[in-house]
């Protein structure tokens, strides 16, 4: 990899136009992070009854804002920025047409603005616009058409971004016909192939059902069908958030550890497995949906358990790379080498702690994925406890830590305070430990998620060895620490921009893997083959369940014709 960007030249100097779009994407992500994070604090304090300054009816508007801005806008804006950086630097060529690059960025901004306005309209009673449909936005909850239109526009923007990166690769390949795809570009392309396959579900759901329904063009929809189409997209989107974090863990973390990636071939295998297995698993989110046969759910569970394989391969490869770095730094012994890792570096410590949290999230994810034990925690606070470990820490903390590493390369500004940065990543880890632990425990005693009023009159949860008040306290404290950490992150990054330009250079080079691409079979780079297999797996997993759902409940719901309602006014 180092050969791709030799020397100490900053990305900003080599690719100034691309650096601008990367910066714009990251800033968009951070704006979404700030607003969405504030929504998280409001929820944590409201639910636990520590501080209530919104009506409980508005809680769902805040919840939607929190979910959409963090799970869609923050993650994906960061992804497009990081992927643009990764493709440009690993292919060592500028984007093909910077106008097209700005076009997809502005399309995504427009989509976010439309969806955001629709959500914020929910706070103002005099405006007939609202979208209190939560991040999952399937029927029977209905949003204003502007919300669905915004989502559609945003996703079209991501498709255009993917096309931009594919164009770079196609042109690079024409000039380098016998070269292996550089690892970072390979990761980007595999992720985007997975994204194209998985967003078909949400595109159909929005454009064919939810948007026409919201506009009044069709009378009703089949709620189970829209749920199934959402979850067809809703699980792979988890990997869409995770893949940029993986890219940083595989290609950046070994270098800042002082070592080299253990195995390039293993990294390629992991991304191939994610392309194959991410999508045919979504039904595991629907174990309690009555309209899907148990056999289909069992298939989804089996596929989901296979997903543990790439996660475990990643744990092995990343830790092996870290150990290699530690031993280069003089680390010895079975465990003493851990002390030789660069814990003073906030980029490293943040990513390492994020990886640790991801392991914990993987364990609670296995509970979610098991058909029988899922019944114990389904729709309980356990589930947000789980995904705050995965997307809320493995992804978000890696992105924040990655920002400390990449920011100087994009701005020629040092991070204002590395001490604050180190404190910030550790504070996030501690805050999430407290909040997520309490959420998991509350879920185990049956406390529901997605509600402003988790306590019901005349009923008390049996909290076992502690009390509900103690769990609430832990959630409130954890949420507050997370918000303080978030403010420190944003403040540190913003103040960094006002620092004078660096006079000395930064080391932006990435080390070569111990086992390089020459050690991996060429078939791993055959994108057509893996895409074809992924499509076949999706067809096998989804064709019969969707046929059964449509057969049982009708394409547009039971008892209605399969034609748009407005046709009634046209046809005599």
């Amino acid at each position, binding site marked *: 990899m180092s050969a791709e960007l030799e020397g100490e030249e900053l990305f900003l100097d080599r690719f100034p136009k691309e650096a601008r779009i990367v910066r714009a994407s990251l800033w968009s992500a951070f704006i979404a992070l700030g607003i969405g994070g504030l929504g998280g604090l409001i929820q944590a304090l409201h639910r636990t009854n520590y501080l209530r300054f919104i009506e409980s009816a508005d809680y769902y508007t805040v919840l939607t804002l929190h979910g959409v801005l963090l799970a869609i806008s923050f993650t994906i804006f960061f992804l497009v920025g990081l992927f643009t950086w990764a493709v440009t630097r690993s292919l060592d060529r500028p984007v093909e047409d910077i106008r097209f690059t700005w076009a997809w960025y502005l399309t995504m901004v427009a989509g976010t603005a439309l969806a955001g306005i629709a959500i914020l309209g929910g706070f103002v009673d005099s405006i007939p616009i609202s979208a209190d449909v939560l991040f999952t936005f399937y029927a029977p909850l209905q949003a204003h058409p502007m919300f669905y239109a915004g989502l559609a526009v945003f996703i079209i923007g991501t498709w255009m971004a993917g096309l931009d990166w594919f164009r770079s690769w196609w042109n690079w390949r024409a000039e380098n016909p016998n070269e292996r795809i550089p690892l970072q570009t390979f990761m980007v392309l595999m992720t985007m192939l997975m994204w194209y396959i998985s967003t078909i579900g949400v595109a159909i759901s929005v454009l064919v059902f939810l948007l026409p329904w919201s506009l009044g063009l069709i009378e009703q929809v089949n709620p189970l069908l829209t749920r199934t189409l959402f979850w067809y997209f809703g699980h792979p989107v988890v990997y869409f958030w995770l893949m940029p974090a993986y890219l940083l863990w595989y290609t950046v973390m070994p270098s800042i550890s002082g070592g080299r990636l253990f195995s390039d071939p293993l990294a390629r295998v992991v991304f191939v497995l994610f392309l194959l297995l991410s999508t045919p698993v979504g039904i595991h989110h629907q174990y309690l949906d009555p309209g899907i046969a148990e056999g289909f759910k069992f298939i989804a569970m089996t596929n989901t358990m296979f997903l543990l394989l790439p996660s475990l391969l990643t744990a092995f490869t990343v830790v092996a790379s870290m150990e290699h770095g530690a031993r280069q730094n003089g680390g010895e012994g079975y465990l*003493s080498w851990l002390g030789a890792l660069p814990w003073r570096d906030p980029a490293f410590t943040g990513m390492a702690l994020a990886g640790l949290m991801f392991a914990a999230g993987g364990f609670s994810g296995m509970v979610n994925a098991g058909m029988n034990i899922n019944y114990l925690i389904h729709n309980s606070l356990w589930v947000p406890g789980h995904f705050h470990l995965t997307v809320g820490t493995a992804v978000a903390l890696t992105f924040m830590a990655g920002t400390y590493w990449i920011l100087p390369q994009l701005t020629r500004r040092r991070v204002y305070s590395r001490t604050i940065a180190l404190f910030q990543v550790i504070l996030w880890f501690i805050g999430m*430990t407290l909040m997520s*632990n309490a959420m998991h425990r509350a879920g185990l005693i049956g406390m529901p998620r997605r509600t402003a009023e988790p306590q019901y009159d005349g009923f008390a949860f049996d909290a076992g*060895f502690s009390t509900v008040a103690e769990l609430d306290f832990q959630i409130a404290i954890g949420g507050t620490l997370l918000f303080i950490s978030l403010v420190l992150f944003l403040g540190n990054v913003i103040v960094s921009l006002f620092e004078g330009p660096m006079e000395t250079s930064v080391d932006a080079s990435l080390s070569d893997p111990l086992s390089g691409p020459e050690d991996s079979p060429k078939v791993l780079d055959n994108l057509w083959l893996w895409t074809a297999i992924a499509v076949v797996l999706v067809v096998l997993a989804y064709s019969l369940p969707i046929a059964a759902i449509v057969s049982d409940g009708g394409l547009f719901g039971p008892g209605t014709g399969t034609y748009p309602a407005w046709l009634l006014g046209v046809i005599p």
Partner: protein
Amino acid sequence: MSKKISRVGLLVILAFLTPLIVELRTVAGFMGISLSPAAYVGLAAALVVVVLLAVALWNLHVEGALLNRTEGA
């Protein structure tokens, strides 16, 4: 010879101990051991001290072994 644990080291150790301490209460609770929050905080503090001592003693042990090896050579 002496090797101090830096402030950064303390911070990192605290980070790694936090989930262990939090989960300790969960595990103890499921085993039927119920502690008051005050007793729990005391136990957590004791655990932190034990871990720090263990790290310090381990460092002494490693450095002692290295010293012996150097002198032996």
